């Protein structure tokens, strides 16, 4: 259960499936030799290097910009200013309804800056160094304004307005209410009131920063954008209208991407600047973001407050309902927001049977970097909150957190389970997962270990966290944010073809960043075509020219195992049927039913001597087709668009199925706190995963491990901290401490497989299970403090100094009241 094993190499004679095997990754051959092609590796003759001049102020009017001295620099090719951008482009389309809809967002700051690090001018020069030098010569005059950095005060009387066009700092608000709150609180024995909980601002900081190399083909008016943007479908619909061109003019190309985690979805403003410069300067331009620039300006995870929470509960721990005011800090621009205002609703009740829920959701702008998706996007915040309520209720009522969870879990026999807001959990067994996790950390020995730790002067705590890794979005949920939007459903594309010499070539619309799509797609194809995975060639990355993409193509939101592999399966089955049809003709009119694929070709079931290799099939159709029947509808080049079965949600009731699958994770952390300093070690840790059928267990476990590591980093160290003037205090890896080799605790992993009844392979998208770990650490800290002041953990970030503060002054924890209902 805890070890990773490599399966012996399969031969094609074996009748086992490739799916479910730990085959070595196809991607590794190039990557371990430094032969991957990442965006900064792409070069073109005569290309210019872009450097962005960025705002030193969190909030200021720009009174003048003078680029003349920079333009005179001998190595400079040219510049781009916000004024030019405003003339050449329209503001980006806004997802929000009013007032957020009125925000005007361009590729560069126009007239005003709204966060430290906001790009104002782009300078292009012969070398990276010259571009930086010349940027120093750009003269910008500012008229500084007060900054808003605390979302709780963004709407106070007299605070400055960040977007005048929006008429204030409110971006979006909506009320979600399901069930009967009054009845729930009337039925309750106790009401637990929690004044404030805070989910902090961090992101997954992929090791490769954003970038692009953009070429403009003047003859056809088309841009080729070599990039590491992980959601070209979204970038295209943002960029095309803004640049006043059709999507045929934007060709996106990716190969290897050095981590994404959602953080590489919203680079469209920089990509537009690159496009404008490539056209203006008539040369290829290259932009590679510096680490400090990434931290300052790109894709922070949603910071969220939960205010005035009330939980209705029975004395035995039965949870009836809750209400809260969720306040989301969007930062300075809405680049993917306010979708975070609805994405959480995919997992409204978490793993529990709450029936009555009210969330007043508000999103405001602040003078901080714009937020955008980060692994576990918006669900992580809400699930953390859900788990927080469980442990606070258990603490206040003197109940066992394990028992409270088990009492309230949605049960395996309840699946598929419809949540109060109409989402359908496809399958799962949460109680069983929790049992496995507890067993892995030897929960029954806990009392003894607590005593041993105490004898050594340490405070031991154990905590549980969970994630519902909802995958395959129904984009119709965007209409709950803005009923005017015309998005719904989802899709992904694959093509599979048989070429002249029998090559099986697969193209995908996805943009993997380590998720091993080349490997897992090969496993699915090889099973259907009864060949070896060595015979399957999956092209690396994404290219608009392959015609294997659709509106939602990309790699995000836990969906490849459903959408991507669904498309691969569909296209491969089409190809299989075509091969059988062709072979039937070649064999002189044999029906497809009498034929089968085997050993890299087609044969008659009753006569294995009658064998047509794939090579012959490919050659006949592609290069030797004279005399074939006119009505033979075979191309051996099959394109399939996978489309999950969704309806448009009910906008009035905010009700409907928002995601197709629900992978799950339960984590348990055991920590030991040094009461002298507040520092703590994670001494035992278990992560249990259920993502339905696993195509490649080793790859799944790798995702579990990676998500866990990111959770532990976020829980203990990682935080984008701002001062009151809006300066980011953690703008690089010195101050923003991501886990290092020495930080890693012992890890035990376990799994169950609950196949999804809604997907063709029984799979569920997965990879975003880390939120469980953030809460597990919070709960462990709270447990350790239980007999030592009893502070209630209120923040998702618990660095050592915060733990020390709570130990020394329990009032630094959340303020909780329990009243008889």
């Amino acid at each position, binding site marked *: 259960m805890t070890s*990773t094993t490599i399966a012996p190499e399969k031969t094609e004679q074996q009748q086992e499936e490739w799916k479910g095997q730990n085959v070595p990754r196809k991607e590794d051959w190039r*990557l*371990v030799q430094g032969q991957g092609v990442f965006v900064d590796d792409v070069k073109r003759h005569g290309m210019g290097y872009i450097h962005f001049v960025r705002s030193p102020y969190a909030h200021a009017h720009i009174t003048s910009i003078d680029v003349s001295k920079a333009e005179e620099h001998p190595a400079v090719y040219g510049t781009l200013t916000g004024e030019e951008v405003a003339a050449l482009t329209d503001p980006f389309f806004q997802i929000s309804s009013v007032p957020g809809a009125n925000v005007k967002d361009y590729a560069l700051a126009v007239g005003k800056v709204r966060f430290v690090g906001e790009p104002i001018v782009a300078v292009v020069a012969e070398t990276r160094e010259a571009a930086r030098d010349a940027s120093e010569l750009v003269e910008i005059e500012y008229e500084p304004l007060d900054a808003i950095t605390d979302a709780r005060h963004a709407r106070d009387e007299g605070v400055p307005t960040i977007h005048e066009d929006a008429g204030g700092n409110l971006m979006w608000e909506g009320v979600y209410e399901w069930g009967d709150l009054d009845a729930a609180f009337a039925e309750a024995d106790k009401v637990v009131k929690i004044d404030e909980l805070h989910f902090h601002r961090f992101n997954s900081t992929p*090791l490769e920063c954003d970038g692009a190399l953009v070429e403009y083909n003047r003859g056809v008016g088309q841009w080729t954008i070599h990039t590491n943007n992980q959601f070209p479908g979204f970038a295209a619909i943002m960029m095309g209208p803004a640049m006043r061109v059709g999507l045929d003019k934007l060709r996106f190309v990716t190969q290897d991407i050095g981590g994404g985690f959602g953080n590489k979805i919203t680079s469209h403003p920089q990509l537009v600047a690159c496009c404008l410069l490539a056209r203006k300067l008539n040369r290829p331009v290259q932009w590679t973001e510096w*680490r400090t620039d990434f931290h300052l300006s790109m894709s922070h995870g949603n910071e969220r407050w939960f205010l005035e929470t009330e939980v209705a509960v029975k004395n035995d721990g039965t949870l009836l309902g809750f209400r809260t005011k969720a306040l989301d800090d969007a930062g300075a621009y809405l680049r993917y927001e306010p979708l975070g205002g609805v994405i959480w609703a995919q997992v409204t009740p978490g793993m529990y049977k709450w029936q009555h829920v009210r969330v007043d959701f508000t999103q405001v702008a602040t003078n901080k970097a714009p937020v955008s998706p980060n692994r576990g996007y918006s669900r992580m915040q809400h699930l953390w909150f859900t788990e927080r309520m469980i442990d606070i209720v258990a603490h206040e009522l003197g109940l066992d957190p394990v028992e409270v969870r088990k009492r309230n879990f949605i049960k395996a026999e309840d699946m598929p389970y419809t949540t109060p807001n109409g989402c359908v959990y496809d399958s799962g067994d949460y109680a069983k997962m929790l049992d496995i996790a507890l067993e892995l950390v030897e929960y029954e020995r806990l009392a003894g270990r607590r005593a041993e730790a105490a004898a050594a002067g340490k405070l031991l705590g154990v905590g549980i966290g969970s994630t519902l890794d909802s995958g395959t979005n129904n984009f119709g949920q965007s209409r709950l944010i803005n009923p005017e939007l015309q998005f719904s459903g989802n899709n992904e594309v694959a093509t599979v073809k048989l070429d002249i010499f029998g090559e099986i070539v697969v193209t995908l619309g996805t943009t993997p960043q380590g998720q091993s799509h080349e490997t897992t797609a090969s496993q699915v194809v090889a099973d259907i075509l009864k060949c070896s995975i060595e015979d399957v060639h999956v092209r690396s990355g994404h290219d608009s020219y392959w015609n294997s993409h659709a509106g939602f193509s990309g790699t995000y939101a836990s969906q490849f195992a459903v959408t991507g592999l669904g498309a691969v399966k569909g296209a491969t089955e089409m190809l299989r049927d075509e091969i059988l049809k062709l072979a039937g003709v070649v064999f002189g009119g044999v029906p497809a039913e009498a034929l089968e694929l085997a050993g890299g070709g087609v044969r008659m079931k009753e006569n294995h001597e009658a064998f047509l290799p794939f090579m012959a099939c490919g050659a006949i159709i592609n290069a030797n087709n004279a005399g074939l029947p006119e009505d033979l509808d075979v191309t051996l080049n099959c394109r399939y668009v996978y489309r999950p079965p969704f309806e448009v949600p009910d906008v009035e009731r905010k009700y409907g199925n928002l995601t197709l699958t629900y992978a799950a994770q339960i984590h348990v952390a055991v920590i030991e706190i040094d009461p002298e300093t507040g520092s703590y070690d994670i001494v035992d840790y278990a992560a249990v995963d259920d993502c339905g059928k696993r195509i490649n267990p080793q790859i799944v476990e790798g995702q579990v491990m990676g998500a866990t*590591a990111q959770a532990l980093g976020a829980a203990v160290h990682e935080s984008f901290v701002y001062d009151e003037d809006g300066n980011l205090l953690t703008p690089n890896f010195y101050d923003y401490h991501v886990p290092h*080799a020495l930080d890693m605790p012992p890890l035990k992993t376990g799994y169950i497989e609950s196949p999804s009844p809604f997907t063709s392979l029984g799979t569920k998208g997965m990879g975003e299970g880390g939120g469980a770990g953030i809460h597990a650490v919070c709960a462990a800290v709270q447990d350790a403090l239980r007999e030592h002041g009893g502070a209630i953990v209120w923040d998702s970030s618990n660095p050592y100094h915060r733990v020390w503060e709570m130990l020394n002054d329990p009032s630094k924890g959340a303020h909780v009241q329990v009243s008889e209902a």
Partner: protein
Amino acid sequence: MATSAVPTERAISVTVNGTTYDREVEARKLLIHFLRDDLDLTGSHIGCDTGNCGACSVIVDGTLVKSCMLLAVQADGARVETVEGLAAGDELSKLQQAFTAHHALQCGYCTPGMLMSATALLRANPSPSDDEIRKALQGNICRCTGYWNIFEAVKAAAE
């Protein structure tokens, strides 16, 4: 623009993976930019501005260094080893094979630096303890794997 009186270009000779390159470089150019931009050896990567991440780790005259913390001119006359030199033709090194077998990489961006650090470790200490492996890799950041499989891979290669 006034031109500086100080010469900014210097001729250097660097041997990388056995091939000697003679080039004129700006005195301020970092070794990593020299490797990537001038020699087109793009296997070594850049993940930070501050010397924290280790994605650019290479071996210079037998010593593991972060090539963003060294100027190209400082490598004049040196023998540099990068990830491109680890395999012998089509034969992956034991470490490279172990990284694949143990799924010690996902996106592969940190991998070249990680492999160089581990290579330096195993040369100096062919049988490292678990603790020694962790210490040797503490200068290399990986955001995908959580390191656990990397520890396993290095241990397997050592055995």
